[in-house]
């Protein structure tokens, strides 16, 4: 029965993915893509990977959807995709090659990394093995990932015209005083702030973490900005820039401190969990600010 459900879910996701790529208007493509993201998130739940499902729903479907909608002001730009022979042939060949791999790969001959990760969980400072991998075993990787987010934001800002560099970002939509956006802009942020903080806190022992919680916090800030409840910040403000780098800087400092205990990104013995939680909260705040400003886009472009 559950296998049948999985197959139906997979078929629906495939149909939505196809429909989104082949949609006639840009808006329809984005709407279908968001629905597709939600189904992909459900598939991750079915695989038992709740951490990934949360990230996919919050970032892959939600934030990416809002980001794309920014570029679709009423536009149905461009014709529907043309089916040219060469791309279709290459896509079909790719599918065939990947399916051979899917059919061929079976059980790993030896112990997997996952089993070894579980064995050392006590020293990693998190009961949630995914958080342990992100913040302890692969701390260097995750640190650089947060740096990538910051570099992406600099790249987006750099697209602003010379005169607008450092100016305020524009997130404001046309807001009717008692309309849906205005109401949600007031009602949702308090609930979302608590949910986001909870997701960061619980990430050490249950599904959640800095990225998932940070995305919820980012969404709340975006909502408040779009509903004109708070002003979008000046991208040149020192306070904002400090907020953006504080999390990665804290992570790097904690990582360097780890060298005193034997290894880069190793946590002080006996204080593993407080260290992980402190880094998680620091990261979540910077990730939230970075993601929200990434979605807002360059300061004043084309307005």
């Amino acid at each position, binding site marked *: 029965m559950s296998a049948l459900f999985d197959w139906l879910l997979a078929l629906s996701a495939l149909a939505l993915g196809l429909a989104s790529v082949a949609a006639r208007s840009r808006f329809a493509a984005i709407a279908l893509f968001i629905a597709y993201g939600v189904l992909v998130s459900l598939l991750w739940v079915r695989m038992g990977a709740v951490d990934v499902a949360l990230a996919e729903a919050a970032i892959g479907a939600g934030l990416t959807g809002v980001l794309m909608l920014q570029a679709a002001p009423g536009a149905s730009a461009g014709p529907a995709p043309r089916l040219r022979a060469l791309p279709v042939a290459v896509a079909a060949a790719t599918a065939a090659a990947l399916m051979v791999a899917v059919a061929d790969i079976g059980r*790993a001959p030896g112990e997997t990394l996952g089993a070894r990760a579980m064995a050392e969980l006590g020293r990693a400072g998190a009961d949630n093995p995914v958080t342990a991998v992100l913040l302890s075993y692969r701390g260097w990787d995750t640190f650089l990932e947060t740096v990538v*987010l910051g570099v992406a934001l600099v790249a987006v800002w750099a697209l602003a015209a010379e005169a607008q560099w450092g100016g305020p970002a524009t997130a404001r939509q046309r807001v009717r005083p008692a309309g849906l956006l205005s109401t949600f802009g007031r009602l949702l942020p308090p609930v979302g702030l608590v949910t986001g903080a909870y997701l960061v806190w619980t990430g050490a022992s249950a599904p959640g973490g800095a990225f998932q919680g940070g995305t919820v916090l980012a969404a709340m800030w975006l909502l408040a900005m779009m509903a004109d409840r708070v002003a979008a910040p000046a991208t040149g403000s020192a306070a904002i820039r400090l907020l953006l780098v504080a999390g990665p800087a804290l992570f790097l400092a904690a990582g360097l401190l780890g060298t005193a205990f034997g290894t880069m990104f190793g946590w002080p013995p006996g204080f593993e969990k407080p260290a992980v939680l402190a880094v998680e909260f620091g990261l979540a705040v910077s990730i939230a600010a970075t993601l929200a400003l990434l979605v807002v886009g360059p300061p004043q472009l084309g307005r």
Partner: protein
Amino acid sequence: MSLFADPFALLGALLVAVGFAGLVGGADLVRRLIGFNVAGSGLFLMFGGLSGRMLGAPLPTGPDPVPQAMVITGIVVALAAIAIGIALARGLETVAPPDE
């Protein structure tokens, strides 16, 4: 292992192809980026599905945490790439509006 052991990896493989076709076949910049994203999420699903299979029996806490963490990293980096792509597309359309 058969191709139809579970839907996840197979779906991922097909989505990579669908996304790729959208990426190179689309005339509209935003829909090309959607194709890029569909291919990316397909790759993640394939990775997740295959890792579950390689583990044999799931660990007491569920599927292998290492691929999960790598996919979360991938999702975040994909968003960063899409943000730059959308900002570039918006800039291009401000300079040269799409004709229709």
